[in-house]
């Protein structure tokens, strides 16, 4: 079992998918010789050629729109968006075309397009390089959205994304690209749309995903020191959300905290809070609490540690939910 950095696990997954199916092509800005600004596609153009690893003109709508066309022609394009906020020029192609063509053609057309989006903050970047836009895509039907938090999941989930006949947005926790972990290349996980109980616990359920998973693990440890048993769930799939797994946990613990870097207001936590409250009303000892970004633009990097949920803020949430 190799130990890989999360970014390199994605590289390995991409490589595997490209070997398995020569209809898989990569397209994006600077993904060729440079290997992408995070080096996720490093070496792939050298090995698979310029026809399968395509440096695109600097136009995100064009990249998504032409990928749709390539998919209609029988290809399985995997797009790299350079940074989270640079996906917005492609918003229209994603939500009115990519997400809707299967429906528009009454199922005749499938759109196996993957959009890789490095997202989240914490790497000291300037404006537009640290956002977490998952919620605005999850609101639109037609897209699947997943986000790995470990190298093992990264390796498998990127392949599952590419295999999917539905369009998949693959959100990569960029500040965890350097997180190393074992990748079991023989045994895949529970499938892309299942949440996973990472640590069992009895007092509070904590739901996190992507970049906040390591922070959440720290919370579990710190809470244990204080005598609180936290059950930690890695959401993994952001659309659909595996409410069954969360519900089962909350029916056990009676308390739920959800954390994400995205703004709390209308973030995924809102939906999880609303739906879990509906499903487990009589089991909840406290309202579902959310710890996340503020309703402000993501700040300059000197201030981002205030914006991002950290150990203390999430612990504070755990304490508050226990105080009910």
């Amino acid at each position, binding site marked *: 079992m190799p130990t890989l950095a999360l970014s390199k696990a994605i590289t390995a997954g991409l490589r595997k998918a490209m070997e398995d199916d020569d209809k898989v092509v990569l397209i994006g800005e600077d993904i060729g010789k440079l290997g992408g600004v995070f080096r996720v596609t490093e070496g792939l153009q050298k090995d698979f050629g310029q026809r399968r690893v395509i440096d695109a003109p600097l136009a995100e709508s*064009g990249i998504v729109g032409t990928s*749709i066309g390539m998919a209609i022609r029988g290809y399985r394009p995997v797009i790299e968006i350079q940074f989270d906020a640079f996906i917005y020029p492609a918003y229209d192609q994603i939500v009115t*075309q990519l997400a809707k*063509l*299967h429906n528009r053609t009454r*199922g*005749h057309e499938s759109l196996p397009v993957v959009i890789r989006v490095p997202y989240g903050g914490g790497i000291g970047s300037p404006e537009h390089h640290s956002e977490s836009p998952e919620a605005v895509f999850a609101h639109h039907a037609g897209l699947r959205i997943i986000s790995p938090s470990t190298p093992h999941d990264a390796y498998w989930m990127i392949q599952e994304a590419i295999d999917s006949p*539905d369009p998949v947005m693959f959100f990569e926790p960029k500040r965890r690209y350097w997180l190393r972990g074992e990748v079991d290349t023989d045994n895949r996980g529970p499938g892309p749309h299942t949440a996973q109980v990472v640590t069992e616990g009895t007092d509070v359920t904590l739901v996190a995903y992507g970049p906040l998973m390591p922070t959440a693990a720290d919370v579990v440890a710190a809470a244990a020191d204080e005598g609180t048993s936290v059950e930690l769930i890695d959401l993994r799939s952001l659309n*659909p959300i595996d409410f069954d797994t969360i519900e089962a946990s909350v029916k056990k613990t009676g308390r739920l905290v959800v954390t994400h870097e995205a703004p709390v207001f209308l973030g995924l936590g809102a939906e999880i809070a609303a739906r879990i409250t509906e499903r487990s009303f009589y089991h909840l000892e406290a309202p579902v609490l959310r710890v996340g970004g503020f309703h402000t633009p993501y700040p300059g990097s000197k201030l981002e540690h205030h914006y991002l949920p950290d150990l203390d803020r999430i612990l504070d949430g755990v304490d508050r939910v226990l105080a009910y």
Partner: protein
Amino acid sequence: MTSNIAQASDSRTSSEPRMIQMLTPDGERISSGEYDAFAAELDDEDLRGFYKDMVLVRRVDAEGNALQRQGQLGLWAPLLGQEAAQIGMGRALRPQDFVFPTYREHGVAWCRGVAPETLLGLFRGQNHGGWDPQEHNFHTYTIVIGSQTLHATGYAMGVGLDGEVGTGDPARDTATVACFGDGATSQGDVSEALTFAGAFNAPVLFFCQNNQWAISEPTSVQTRVPLFMRGQGFGVPGVRVDGNDIIAMYAVARASLDSVRAGHGPMLIEAFTYRMGAHTTADDPTKYRDAATTEAWAAKDPITRLRAHLESLGTPEEFFVEVDAEADALAARIRENCISMAEPDPAEIFAYAYREPHSLVEEERAEYLDYLASFEDSTEGAR
């Protein structure tokens, strides 16, 4: 001095652009230089075929309007006046070519073998299109202006990756056609399509039907230079053709498609035509344009023009009578098939959101169908 600089390089000052024409509004056949060769192969039978196509799609169109007026359709987007542009292009295509249409491409759809009834699903509100693009090499209609030009370009890039271009084999080399209007040229997506097409030398033909209007906006709102020039700065050469002249349309389309299929790169055709009807049945053109201009264009009608030409070639009167009869029958069939369309099943709402099962959609479907079922024994019923 200043204005000299401006003028020196100002392309606005160019004179009226060349427009390819082979059939005058009076039906007289004229030469148009290098494109003549592409019309040379057309015999009288071909021309009668064009005539029939145009008359039939005009009847389809009239029936669309009528069905909308009678409440059978929610909306109709008429192609009146653009028959030559669309049939000329449609008939120049080979089976393996692939077309990405707007919402007004009823004539091209006709040539691709999409039954007019099939188009009605969208306009009646049964669905949003629903046909199989691969069956006809004709994509579903696109409503969001310009989007489809990127799909066409990407498809053509795929054709390039497949190597189905420049092989010299007429059964393999494949052109992709991106249809769009004059208004669409302003959308960033269309420029990005030109960018990608140029950068990747994609075998795509940009087919702009300049019908002079984008709803109420004349083309001058979008551009101050002729639209056939739009691709120049992207490496996509363009040509303006009389879009009401089916012979010129066919010839220019043939020439351009051949060039595209041969791998010489993307091209752009501006078919200069006129939207004789309303934008859609929801539109009232009297609000924004005067009847005089429309009348002037009526004198350039593509069907009248070809009919005059066919008559000059000695086509017997019976031919025209037969075509009209066929049009009547077609209209009756369409009407019948439209009216008899079944109400769509509410489960359809949930059926195609995703191809693979999706837990949330399944939950909502089950809940809603249960909810509907709960009315079954009640007198109210769900509305």
